[in-house]
């Protein structure tokens, strides 16, 4: 009887802990930590994080794969298919970690192909992303009807962007709502690294100074602490811990880049109804630091796709 009681108490504890953890995790955000974040933040972002403890929910928003691809295109970069993760690699990804990372990577590649109107690649990369989502058990993220809709609208870039955005939201919301924030975070990390990898590979060192793409790469320094905070919220998961170690290595290189920003002045433009946030920024990245950054990003990204 006592033994039965012990077993049932143990079972109850497991169910209770599971329930509490799922309820805690499915709220779409993270409870603010009760102690200081262990992430080291650079002086220019410290103030933003200082009062992090006050909120009930914290969202760390990385650029989505679509936004990353858009940033590359807006910098005037060319399209290079050889930089994308080959769709032939899909069968290599069998663990949750590799599927999550490559869901983000393939979604970024898909976005990149969409923005440059690479019609056959769009279908191929949507299928590769679907394979990753299916492997992760994400129900209804990318259905056959989505692929059919994509094929029907293959020459309509606006509809394609809508479909890419919708499928990514389906995946991330499913993962958040089903208590899998670590998988959701790894998907975002995969997409962010792919965007950064493609950008660093597209920089022509002969045109380093004043290169708009280099400016975009420097901007990613602003997201490295957000990325670490996002991963820290799933710390303890072995797959996430491995990625934290890799990102920390990248942060050391990013910390060699200096960004100085003047105070932001909002100015409302009545003609367009848009507020312009005016500020001047000074950045400093030597070609040597850039090459170190590109090598580190390449090494990490290649470990994700191998």
């Amino acid at each position, binding site marked *: 009887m006592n033994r039965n009681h012990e077993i049932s108490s143990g079972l*109850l504890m497991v169910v209770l802990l599971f329930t509490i953890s799922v*309820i805690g995790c499915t709220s*779409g955000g993270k409870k603010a930590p009760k102690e200081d974040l262990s992430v080291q933040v650079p002086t220019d972002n410290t103030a933003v994080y200082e009062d992090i403890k006050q*909120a009930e929910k914290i969202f760390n*928003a990385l650029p989505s794969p679509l936004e990353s691809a858009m940033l590359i295109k807006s910098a005037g970069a060319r399209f290079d298919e050889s930089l994308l993760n080959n769709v032939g690699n899909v069968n290599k990804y069998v663990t949750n970690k590799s599927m999550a990372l490559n869901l983000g990577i393939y979604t970024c590649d898909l976005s990149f192909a969409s923005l440059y109107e690479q019609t056959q690649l769009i279908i191929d990369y949507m299928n590769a992303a679907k394979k990753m989502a299916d492997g992760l058990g994400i129900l209804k993220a990318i259905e056959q009807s989505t692929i059919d809709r994509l094929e029907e609208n293959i020459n309509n870039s606006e509809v394609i962007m809508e479909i890419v955005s919708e499928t990514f939201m389906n995946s991330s*919301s499913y993962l958040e709502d089903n208590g899998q924030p670590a998988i959701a975070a790894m998907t975002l990390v995969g997409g962010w690294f792919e965007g950064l990898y493609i950008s660093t590979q597209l920089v022509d060192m002969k045109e380093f100074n004043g290169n708009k793409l280099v400016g975009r790469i420097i901007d990613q320094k*602003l997201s490295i602490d*957000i990325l670490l905070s996002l991963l820290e919220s799933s710390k303890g998961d072995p797959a996430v811990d491995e990625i934290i170690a890799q990102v920390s290595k990248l942060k050391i290189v990013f910390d060699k880049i200096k960004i100085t920003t003047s105070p*932001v002045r909002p100015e409302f433009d009545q003609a367009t109804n848009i*507020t312009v946030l005016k500020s001047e920024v000074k950045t400093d990245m030597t070609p040597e630091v850039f090459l170190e950054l590109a090598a580190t990003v390449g090494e990490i990204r290649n470990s994700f796709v191998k």
Partner: protein
Amino acid sequence: MRIYRLIPILALLLIASVKVDAQCKAFAKKVCLPELGSYTHDGNYHAAVLVEGEEAELYKTFYSDMDYRVAICGEDKLPNIEFRIMDSNKNVLYSNKDNNYSRTWDFKLQSSQQLKLVVKVTSFNQAGDTPASGCVSIMFGFKIKK
């Protein structure tokens, strides 16, 4: 044996919590997404169930050369949703409180910045009542500057 009777209750609690969040996703798609209008949704999902008086914070880098729209929506059963956008020096750059609790704000940046959004569910101020709770969704749309 009595302890086993609690298991279905806990299972129901679990299912209910997942269901509430699934409703948040439906709310975000049905109500908040259309608020982005001609802006392309970035595909990210930020939604949570908040109670009157609760706050949420979001950290995000915004880039020059892009036009942005942020849409922050709360379910009808909630009081007004207040949001503020701050820079790294904690200067408030925008507050929708000064704009009749508008759900959206359009902006662009001269240089890329990490900004902080603070979202707060205001209060109905009805003492003794159970505080209202409901989904709050934050969405971003963008356009490349022409």
